[in-house]
């Protein structure tokens, strides 16, 4: 099972096993990774599953779609490596991917 390495808002490091076929958000939420709030459960309606993906790994992800782009625009401190974790599907080549959870979720 691919491992994902989260840095939580407090600076804590959490390594979790993420089963194939679910989303990064779901893996984080099931394990209770701090700061991945994910209110809408992956409907792309809340932007509270915002994470920063290690830039070196971005190319392995499907690019953002229009809806995700729009949701991220008003998220808290969006950056070039911002993603909605509910839009990222776990695949084998994400094994080891470092992901940082922002200090806050929601609007700035």
């Amino acid at each position, binding site marked *: 099972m691919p491992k994902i390495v989260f840095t939580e808002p407090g600076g804590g490091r959490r390594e979790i096993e993420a089963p194939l076929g679910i989303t990064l958000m779901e893996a984080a939420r099931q394990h209770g990774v701090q700061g991945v709030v994910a209110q*809408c459960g992956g409907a792309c309606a809340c932007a509270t599953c915002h994470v920063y993906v290690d830039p070196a790994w971005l190319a392995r992800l499907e690019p953002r779609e229009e809806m995700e782009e729009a949701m991220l625009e008003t998220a808290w401190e969006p950056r070039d490596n911002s993603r909605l974790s509910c839009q990222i599907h776990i695949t084998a080549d994400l094994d080891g991917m470092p992901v940082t959870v922002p200090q806050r979720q929601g609007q700035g």
Partner: protein
Amino acid sequence: MISTILIIGGGQAGAQAIDTLRREGFAGRLVLIGDEPELPYQRPPLSKKYLSGEMAADRLPFRHRAFYDEHRVELKLGKRAVRLDAAARQVTLADGENLTYDRLLLCLGAESRRLNCPGATLPGVHYLRGLIDVPPIQAGLKPQARIVIIGGGYIGLEAAATARKMGCEVTVLEMADRLMNRVVAPSVSRYFAEEHRAHGVNIICDTRVVHLAGQGRIERVVCADGGSHAADLVIVGVGAIATTELASAAGLACDNGIVVDEYCRTGDAAIYAAGDCTNHPSLHFGRRVRLESVDNAFEQAKAAALNLMDRSVAHDRVPWFWSDQFDNKLLIVGLSQDHDGQVLRGDPASRSFSVCYLKGRELLAVEAVNHSKDYMAARKLIADRTLLNVDKLADSAIALKEAI
């Protein structure tokens, strides 16, 4: 000292309260009583991807069991609370167990409103609220099966879209003159009616169901106007009623929901409530509301959890909501009731538009169809009570956040 907190109801609100209590430092005994046997799970997929089979059951729970163990949460699942003795601060479960508390949080949710016309209890007539309701419906969603949905609200329409995608012949019967009439503008109703029709759903408004007919099983749905619709399976989606018996029997004030203040407190100093079961003040809109949404259950439960620990935090949020029907996303933010003006942004024919509700120049609510940008901008503009420039607002080439 608050050494024991009991939560009744393991849905969206109950699960969130647990999370907030533990993350914010409650170290005492924490017990969750829920009558459904499953770990707390999300309901929205029940009319969407879980119903269609695209989403597996293990993706529904909010958290793994390990999370509850790790956070020392005593789960009493599959157990119903049948009596609340507020004076003794004691809850009795159906199996006779008694539990005492220092603080109690009621997250009882809501129940599907039942039809009471003749034939309403025939086999093949279903409601959709919990996981237990899904398998018998799924079993009937076969290609060409004739599915009649009673009620053109969002749950009925989501179920209609799912059934249609699975190849069923679907008819939606709505009593009002348009779909989702209590929650959206006529232009949005019209858009969704057209979308459903374009996908082959038979939408019939202005019709009242009077009789469910069949020999030992549902066969036809009969309407007051004489219409008769052949049905292999019926899904009833005519709204929900707040679950309040436990509270009202204990002497707590209930009026379309358990009455709470902005701190989620009932009239009893030790008892709080959150989620679909509450009648609560919306501070932003200055009136009492009862909301059925993930957002409200989540935010109210979060506030309730903090107040349970005597941190005085008012539940003061602008509510929002979403619904998925076919490939359309409806996003609603705010409450439109007090508006005195309405502005349409964009052209419904383009499949992406929004309806903005104003009171003077203040934005009260937005219904966005496939328009996440307007929705996200509106969340902030409404919360901040930003005064808008109405001319700019009407020009959809100008971003909503710039229409000031």
